[in-house]
C-alpha cells in the first residue's frame, strides 16, 4: 500500500538555558525551531544582573574596583585597568612608568588566560574534551603568577587609581619569562590539537559568518570584529597606556578555511592574539624599569573635579568602556560600563537564522561571551 503521506512540520519554541552547559553561564536562548533548523533566536539576559552600576554610585571611586573584577571574571585585570584608566583621566592622575609596564604585563597575561578559557570551552562545546585540560593546565600557571603578585586567583583587585597595589615580588620576572618560553612551545600543541583538526574545521568554517559592515553596525569589538577582517584594536588605534612603545601585530580573520568572519576565523584570531601577547610581555619585561614608583601619590580621598569622561580600552573580549561622571565629591555620580560581550552577543539573532542547532552552539562559543559582563 503506497499512499503518499504529506509530512507537516511544525515550528516549536525551545528554551536553551539558563542552565545549559554550552551557553557559558546563565544565558537563555529562546529558539524557534523547525526540527533542527533554527528560524529565530532571542537571547534573554539578566540572569546575573548584580547591580554593579548601582554599586559604582554608592561607594567611593576606589570601592568600585573590586566590582569591576567581578564583571568580566575571566579577565579581572583588564576590567580593573579599564576602570582605573577612566578614573585617572577624570582626576588627571599621571601613572609612573614602572606601574604602566607592570599593568601591561598583567593585562596581557590575563588576556592569555581569558583566551585559554575561550579555547578550552570552545572545544568542550564542540565535543572535544582534551583541549579543555590542556588550556586549564596552562591557565593555572598564569594564575600562580597572579597569586604571587596579589594573592588572588580570580578576583585580583590588583590595580589602583594611579598604579598597582604592590610591587612585583622578587624573582617574578624570571618566572614570567620562563612561563612565556614554555607557553610558546605549548601553543604549537594547541594548534595541532584543535585549530587544524579536520573535524573542528568542518564544524566551524563557514558557520556564523559576520560581515565587516554588520560587525561594526552591531557594535562588535575585539576578536569578533577582527575575525571579520577589520583591523581595529584600541591598543594601537587609541594607544592608551604605553602601547605605542610596543611592536606587535593585530591578527585578523582572513577567511582561510571558509568565508571571512566565520567561527573559525574568530577562534583563530584569539589563538594568534595569544602569540602576540607573548611578544608584548617579553618586550615589557625587557623594558621594565628597575626602579621607580609602582603607584602615583593619590590622596586617600580621591576627589576628581567636576566633569565626565568615557574611556575605553581593549579587554580580552573587546572594547570595554567606562563612562564616569563626577560631581566633585568623592563618589562617582554615575558609572556606566559598556561591556564588549553585550554588543558581541546582540549580533547573534541576526546571523543565526536558518542555522542548525549544533551550529548555533558553535557560533555562540566563538563569540566568547561572559555573562558577568553582559548583565553586570
Amino acid at each position, binding site marked *: 500500500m503506497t499512499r503518499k503521506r504529506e509530512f507537516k512540520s511544525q515550528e516549536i519554541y525551545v528554551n536553551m538555558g539558563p542552565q545549559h552547559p554550552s551557553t557559558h553561564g546563565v544565558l537563555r536562548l529562546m529558539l524557534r525551531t523547525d526540527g533542527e533548523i533554527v528560524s529565530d533566536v532571542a537571547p534573554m*539576559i*539578566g540572569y546575573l544582573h548584580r547591580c554593579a*552600576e548601582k554599586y559604582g554610585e554608592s561607594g567611593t571611586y576606589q570601592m568600585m574596583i573590586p566590582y569591576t573584577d567581578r564583571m568580566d571574571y575571566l579577565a579581572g585585570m583588564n576590567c580593573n585597568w579599564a576602570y582605573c584608566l577612566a578614573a585617572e583621566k577624570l582626576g588627571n592622575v599621571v601613572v609612573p612608568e614602572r606601574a604602566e609596564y607592570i599593568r601591561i604585563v598583567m593585562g596581557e597575561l590575563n588576556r592569555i588566560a581569558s583566551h585559554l578559557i575561550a579555547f578550552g570551552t570552545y572545544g568542550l562545546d564542540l565535543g572535544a574534551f582534551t583541549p579543555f585540560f590542556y588550556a586549564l593546565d596552562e591557565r593555572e600557571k598564569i594564575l600562580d603568577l597572579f597569586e604571587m603578585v596579589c594573592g588572588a586567583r580570580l578576583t585580583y583587585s590588583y590595580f589602583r587609581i594611579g598604579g598597582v597595589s604592590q610591587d612585583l615580588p622578587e624573582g617574578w620576572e624570571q618566572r614570567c619569562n620562563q612561563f612565556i618560553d614554555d607557553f610558546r612551545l605549548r601553543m604549537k600543541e594547541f594548534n595541532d590539537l584543535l585549530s587544524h583538526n579536520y573535524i573542528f574545521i568542518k564544524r566551524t568554517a563557514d558557520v556564523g559568518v559576520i560581515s565587516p559592515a554588520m560587525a561594526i553596525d552591531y557594535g562588535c569589538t575585539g576578536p569578533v570584529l577582527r575575525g571579520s577582517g577589520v583591523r581595529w584594536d584600541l591598543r594601537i*588605534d587609541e594607544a592608551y597606556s604605553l602601547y605605542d612603545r610596543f611592536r606587535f601585530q593585530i591578527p585578523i580573520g582572513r577567511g582561510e578555511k571558509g568565508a571571512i568572519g566565520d567561527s573559525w576565523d574568530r577562534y583563530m584570531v584569539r589563538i594568534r592574539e595569544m602569540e602576540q601577547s607573548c611578544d608584548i610581555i617579553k618586550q615589557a619585561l625587557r623594558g621594565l624599569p628597575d626602579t621607580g614608583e609602582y603607584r602615583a601619590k593619590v590622596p586617600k580621598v580621591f576627589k576628581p573635579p567636576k*566633569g565626565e*569622561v*568615557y574611556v575605553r580600552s581593549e579587554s580580552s573580549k573587546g572594547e570595554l*568602556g567606562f*563612562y564616569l561622571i563626577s560631581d566633585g565629591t568623592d563618589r562617582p555620580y554615575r558609572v556606566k560600563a559598556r561591556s564588549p560581550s553585550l554588543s558581541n552577543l546582540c549580533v547573534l539573532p541576526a546571523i543565526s537564522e536558518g542555522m542548525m542547532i549544533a551550529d548555533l552552539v558553535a557560533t555562540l562559543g566563538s563569540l566568547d561571551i561572559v555573562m558577568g559582563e553582559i548583565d553586570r
Partner: protein
Amino acid sequence: MEIQEIHARLAREFPDAVEAPPEVTSGETFLKVTAASIQDVCRFLKTESDLEFDSLMSLSGVDYPPEELVVVYHLCSTLRRHRVVLKVFVPREDPKLPTVSSVWPTANWHEREAYDLFGIRFLGHPGLRRILLPHDWEGHPLRKDYVFPTEYRGIKCHD
C-alpha cells in the same frame, strides 16, 4: 574633526536642534540635542561622508533629579577616528524620545537597558521590554530615588 566643527556642520543642517558645546574645565564636552530631532541628527552623523560615525560606542542614561533624565550617546568613527558625545535631556516625569536603533542596530539592547534601569521610553523601538530585570519587576533601579524592594514573588529581600 573637532567637536566645534561637528557642531558647525550640524548647526547648518539642523538650526534649532543642536546647542553649542559648553565649556568644561575637565573631561569631555558634549552637544546638546533636542529630543525630537535626535534620530535625524544621528542618521545625518552616520551617513554624511565627512562625518561617518559608524559606531555607537555606548548609550547610557543618567538621572538628574528632580527634573531631568539624560540619554548620552558616545559616537565614534572607525574610519575617520573622531568621537563625539551627544546628550538628550528629557523630562523626568514623561521621558520619551525617538529610538536610534534603526540607525545603529546595536542601540537596540542599549535602549532596552536604559528603559529597564531608568524608565526612558524610546519611541519606535522594535521591542521595548525589560532586558536585565524580570518583566514583573517594579521601578527603575538606577534612578536616584529608587526604593529597594522588600519582597519579590514571596522571597524576602533582607532578613
